[in-house]
């Protein structure tokens, strides 16, 4: 993984000093609320329902064991011993105290971390494929490019006060696991195997109040033009993006109003005028960063069947929570943060430390966070899987539900977030309780359930196979259900099936939805494919056929 050099280190330390000064000035009354807001957001600090919330950057979801231990120590000392992983692969603390935030940032800087640009109208944490570097279908490891983009975007003098937030994702594989069409800019690596490397560029995606999928603006961008092209897109956006209405300020609205053809013209024109003045991605620069992502020292190991003679729960875990690895004898392992009865994405300090130890012992000391709020140990020898499973099970991190209905995404919702209209965590618990039978879940097969507590869509509900959106109905928490969304593969936005349902009826509604699927599915057909084949009508009919309260 990337290690800071003296320059990176000096930079984050100077950033902490700057924010310490700004916090002092705010607390002393010499910096206005509004101005401090702009500054603290760019350091990851929100003021929330109960307390400030600090969102710590985990660039493209990659952490070392040392960093994860530091996060554990921080949550113990400054919070309540618990952290929450987000759909941008970041970690949120829900109970820090404002005057202590500069100290937290200093502790982060000590382990080469920060909270820079995890909020505010600027380029946010760059996200990527959580199986980068190990996926068998990978064209090229996207992480060096992510790191280069991270550095380029960090306090970019021109693009730190944009009309609205700006999210970039990079995918380097055949299968897009980085949801690039849900991003302001999505980059898909193209070329390789002797051909020059470059990117397919997508622009104008975003969820939120008005979900729009990104459109392809360029089929092939040579890698050395990366920054010049990003600067062209951002310059067009910074100039022309709307600033009069926060709900119309994302680049997706600009793309929609101009049309992709006009947007392309403007970007290409700006690119041609500005490229000489923009930084080029040089081979030296790329080589320097790439060297940080060299494969770890894998041993030569035979491919084995680790399930041989093992008990059924291990078999299920192996099947659902591990993935193929491009190197023989290894597997990538999901650490499920979706134990039934816990908040999706939550992790205790003790669990963080234990995972850090396991990573050190079994996976070259690295841990990844995923956009669906789990962790990945990417490089585990197959021969160690059983031992790992036993340990994860003790830690309640081995729920064998990855990709299943209860591996759901949920934002923090009304319990923490000042923007939320409705709770998500209690609904998640109720769903987990209703669908607690793993065998039933396996029978249902892969279903992506994504839930947001408001239309800002942090829980990505639009691109869930089943999406749940919390709405406020005369002071009560109700939930609107969408079906047929997908973020990867053929990206699609879900369709609303009908009127929202009260909180208590969400699990019963889901039950009816999956019943329709069970009745209608062809042999081996996945939920999403059935929805695509039969449309939402049959689901709608069943859900609203009789009173849900009786169900």
């Amino acid at each position: 993984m990337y290690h800071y050099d003296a320059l990176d280190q000096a930079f984050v330390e100077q950033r902490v000093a700057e924010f310490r000064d700004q916090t002092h000035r705010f607390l002393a009354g010499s910096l206005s609320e509004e101005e401090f807001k702009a500054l603290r957001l760019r350091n990851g600090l929100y003021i929330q329902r109960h307390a400030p919330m600090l969102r710590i950057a985990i660039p493209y979801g990659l952490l070392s064991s040392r960093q994860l231990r530091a996060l554990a120590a921080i949550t113990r000392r400054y919070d309540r011993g618990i952290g929450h992983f987000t759909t941008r692969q970041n970690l949120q603390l829900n109970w820090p105290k404002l005057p202590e935030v500069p100290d937290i940032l200093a502790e982060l800087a000590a382990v080469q971390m920060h909270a820079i640009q995890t909020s505010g109208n600027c380029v946010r944490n760059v996200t990527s494929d959580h199986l980068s570097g190990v996926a068998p279908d990978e064209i090229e490891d996207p992480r060096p490019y992510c790191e280069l983009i991270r550095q380029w975007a960090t306090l970019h003098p021109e693009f730190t006060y944009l009309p609205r937030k700006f999210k970039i994702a990079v995918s380097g594989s055949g299968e897009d696991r980085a949801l690039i069409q849900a991003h302001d800019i999505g980059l898909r690596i193209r070329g390789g195997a002797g051909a020059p490397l470059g990117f397919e560029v997508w622009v104008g995606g975003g969820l939120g109040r008005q979900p729009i999928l990104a459109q392809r603006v360029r089929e092939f961008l040579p890698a050395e033009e990366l920054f010049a092209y990003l600067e062209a897109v951002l310059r067009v956006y910074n100039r022309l993006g709307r600033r009069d209405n926060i709900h119309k300020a994302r680049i997706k609205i600009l793309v929609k109003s101009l049309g992709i053809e006009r947007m392309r013209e403007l970007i290409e024109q700006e690119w041609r005028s500005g490229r000489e003045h923009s930084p080029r991605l040089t081979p030296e620069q790329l080589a320097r960063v790439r060297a940080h992502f060299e494969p770890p020292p894998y041993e030569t190991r035979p491919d084995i069947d680790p399930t041989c003679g093992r008990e059924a729960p291990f078999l299920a875990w192996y099947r659902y929570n591990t993935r193929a690895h491009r190197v023989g004898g290894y597997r990538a392992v999901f650490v499920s943060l979706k134990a039934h009865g816990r908040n999706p994405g939550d992790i205790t300090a003790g669990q963080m430390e234990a995972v850090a130890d396991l990573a050190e012992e079994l996976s070259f000391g690295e841990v990844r966070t995923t956009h669906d709020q789990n962790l990945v140990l990417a490089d585990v020898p197959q021969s160690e899987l059983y031992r790992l499973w036993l340990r994860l099970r003790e830690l309640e991190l081995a729920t064998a539900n990855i990709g299943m209905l209860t591996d759901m995404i949920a934002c923090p919702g009304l319990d923490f977030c000042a923007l939320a209209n409705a709770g998500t965590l209690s609904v998640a618990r109720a769903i987990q309780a209703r669908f607690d039978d793993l065998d039933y879940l396996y029978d249902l097969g892969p279903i992506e359930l994504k839930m947001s507590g408001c239309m800002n869509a942090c829980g990505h509900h639009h691109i869930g196979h089943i999406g749940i959106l919390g709405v406020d109905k005369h002071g009560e928490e109700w939930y609107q259900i969408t079906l047929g969304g997908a973020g990867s593969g053929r990206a699609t936005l879900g369709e609303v099936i009908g009127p929202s349902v009260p909180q208590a009826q969400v699990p019963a509604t889901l039950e009816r939805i999956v019943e329709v699927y069970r009745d209608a599915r062809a042999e081996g057909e996945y939920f999403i494919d059935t929805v695509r084949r039969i449309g939402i009508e049959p689901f709608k009919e069943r859900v609203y056929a009789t009173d849900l309260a009786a169900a």
Partner: protein
Amino acid sequence: MRRILRQREWIIDRWRYPGEPASQTDELIVPLAELRAQPEQWLRHSGKLGVRLAPADDPEQLRADLPRLSLVAVEFPNFSDGRGFTQATVLRRLGFAGEIRAVGAGVKRDLLLLMARCGCDAFDLAEGEDPHSALQALGRYSVAYQKAEPLPAVERVRFGA
């Protein structure tokens, strides 16, 4: 008497802003809209001439006028409207070598370094800002990730390019 921070010095400003009384030989700033409305009148001005851009103005439109201009004022109205950063960047890209002055209520210490790195070399500080703190803020960082004066870019240090 107005003082501004120019190239790290706290100096008395001789420029006349739009609406301020000015003689034919004074250094004079006019809004772009006025320059466009009556170009002959303003371009005949015998003193030095400057233009003030509103946040929505496109600096490319000034391309032909730049040789005649000694100053372009770029507006930063608050801590959220960042169009001025792009305007300053584009002006320098067009080869403008005169003064780019940051004006407006957002010209405060916390944003000065970003402004400077986009090409602003003079700052008409917002009310209540003191030049000493502003200078300190300009010196807060020793490196930047982008090619941007007045700081050394990390790439230059890393590769000596």
